[in-house]
């Protein structure tokens, strides 16, 4: 009996010893794991739509790839696409933050409030939101001056139009879209003063059928260069089929209309993503409020179609250089509204504040802006 008892006690001791050894080694294991985590920064990207072959999300993903090409050995990247704006966002962001993602990029306007909410709950995680306006200690935002590219595209359109009528398929009358419309027309007017612009609102960011109908309508009304601020390739395809010109948006869409595609206003996020991830790796990340343009490499034009004459190309290059060095502002005065009211006199230019509140057409746009 006693013998058995001692054996038991010995076994108990063994177990105790073993588990204390285990416990002792546990912190060692976990610190090892932490060190591994530290070496590979976990970065996440959340997109609103499928990545596809062209468009807003595709450009963000190209930027993500460029970042990974440079920093791939130091980061672990997760991509979530087709996350619709709404209740789902908060759950997704929260899950990422709680599973160790230290830098989270969200690329749709509607992600702003959910991201802000999660940012407050995870003070040690950093968040970056595209196209919004709210920031926090650990939430920055970034956006691009799309209108600078629109101005350059306008120069191309104004030079190539024979009917002096341009067409614009637009999604919603918000400042960002209006900046694009007005800058485009001003660019066109800079080379062709009496060019006109017709705008058709489709009230949707993405509806290929309606975009197509809108493009057809504009072409029927005499526009011979059409462009769009919507997400599909339908407008370029319409122009190609009808033998007109098109200027694409977001991505180079030349493969959808090799004759029609004059150029495209393209978005480039790679340098920005690389910079931000590098800052995070160095422990120097700070919440910024970035509005980058051509100068920062965020906006550019796709290669011009071969039908665009050399002198037009030269004008575009010149304007581009002037925008970069600051001597040309797409909304440099005089900026005149449709009804003839002057917004900014010669010599001045619209401030960023003015731009972010834009709610009018400039002179030369036909039709009345829906309010």
């Amino acid at each position, binding site marked *: 009996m006693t013998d058995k008892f001692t054996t038991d006690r010995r076994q108990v001791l063994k177990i105790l010893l073993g588990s204390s050894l285990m416990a002792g080694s546990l912190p060692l294991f976990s610190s090892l794991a932490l060190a591994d985590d530290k070496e590979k920064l976990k970065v996440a990207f959340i997109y609103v*739509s*499928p*990545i*596809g*072959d*062209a*468009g807003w999300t595709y450009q963000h993903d190209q930027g993500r790839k460029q970042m990974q090409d440079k920093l791939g050995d130091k980061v672990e990247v997760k991509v979530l696409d*087709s996350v619709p704006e709404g209740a789902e966002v908060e759950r997704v962001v929260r899950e990422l933050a709680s599973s160790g993602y230290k830098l989270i990029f969200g690329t749709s306007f509607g992600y702003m409030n959910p991201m802000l909410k999660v940012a407050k709950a995870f003070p040690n995680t950093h968040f970056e939101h595209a196209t919004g306006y709210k920031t926090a200690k650990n939430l920055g935002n970034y956006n691009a001056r799309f209108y600078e590219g629109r101005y350059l595209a306008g120069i191309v359109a104004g030079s190539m139009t024979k009917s002096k009528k341009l*067409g614009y398929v637009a999604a919603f*009358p918000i400042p960002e879209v209006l900046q694009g419309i007005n800058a485009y027309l001003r660019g066109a007017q800079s080379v062709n003063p009496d060019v006109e612009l*017709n*705008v*058709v*609102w*489709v*009230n*949707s960011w*993405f*509806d*290929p*059928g*309606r975009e*197509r*109908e*809108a493009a*057809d*309508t*504009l072409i*029927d*009304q005499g526009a011979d260069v059409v462009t769009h601020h919507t997400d*599909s*390739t*339908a407008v370029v*395809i319409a122009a190609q*089929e009808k033998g007109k010109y098109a200027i694409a948006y977001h991505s180079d869409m030349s*493969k*959808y209309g090799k004759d029609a595609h004059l150029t495209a206003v393209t978005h480039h996020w790679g340098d920005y993503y690389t910079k931000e991830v590098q800052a995070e790796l160095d422990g120097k990340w700070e919440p910024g409020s970035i509005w980058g343009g051509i100068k920062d490499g965020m906006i550019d034009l796709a290669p011009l179609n071969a039908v665009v004459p050399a002198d037009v190309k030269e004008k575009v290059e010149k304007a581009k250089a002037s925008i970069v060095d600051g001597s040309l502002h797409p909304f440099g005065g005089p900026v005149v509204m449709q009804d003839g009211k002057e917004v900014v006199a010669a010599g001045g230019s619209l401030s960023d504040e003015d731009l972010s509140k834009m709610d009018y057409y400039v002179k030369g746009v*036909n*039709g*009345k802006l*829906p*309010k």
Partner: protein
Amino acid sequence: MSADTLVLILVATVAAGVPLIFAALGELIVEKSGVLNLGVEGMMIVGAISGFMVAAESGSLWLGVLAGAFAGMLMALVFAFLTLSLMANQVASGLALTIFGIGLSAYMGQAYNSVALDGLKAIQIPLLSDLPVVGKLLFGYDPLVYLALLMYPLLVWFLYYSRGGLILRAIGESPSSAHALGYPVIKIRYLAVLFGGAMAGIGGAYLSLAYTPLWSEGMTAGRGWIALALVVFATWRPGRVLLGAFLFGGVTIAQFHVQGMGVEIPSQFLSMLPYLATITVLVLISRNAATIRLNAPASLGQAFHNEVH
């Protein structure tokens, strides 16, 4: 407005109405047999992606159209099996079919997002197509448009002048009477549902192969629902379905032209106009309660058990 613009609007109207005509005429036959299939949107979009995939891979647009019809039929078969063989609730099954179709098409189409494809071209009839106004208005469409227009007299003949149509309508009115007379109710309803699926599939394939032509997720954008509404508001009469489809297409196109001309109407209001106009007109012309009762299939939406109770 010049005559030229008017012609352009009319031509665009016809094209905009065609997907609705396919889907709505198909659904009309289904409902006339007493089955309510709310899955039109789902069958359309699966037809759109299947047609696009097959056309992109094989290079043949017509094979694509066939694939669209076939895919629509497969979807309809699922619905028919659930509601006709398993007696599941038709409304719930139809809604599920739509949700399933939207998801399935997105999954199938992943690799085909923004693939470039040469769409179905308008036919050119020597001499006729070159006639001034008439040429454009009558002889300048792609073949699917003519197929849609041909479906109308065919279906009118079938429904009202053929024995098959009579049986179909009898089953829609009173399946138990038809059954008592010895007609295979379930089999005929199966055929009607499959036909509806094929038509919705072709309507979807028309969108992805001729109208836009491209594939993108969610591209039917509610057209299946509009087709469903057209059938009801047209009080199950093919002629009025056709009228409703053209009206809807016409107002959609016209509102873009109105915007382009700079008329001071908010574009948001114009966007809702097609729905408003179509429903108002159809309700007004069909407001006679007696004719509605006469045309509405009495057993619509009710499951039919063919064993003796």
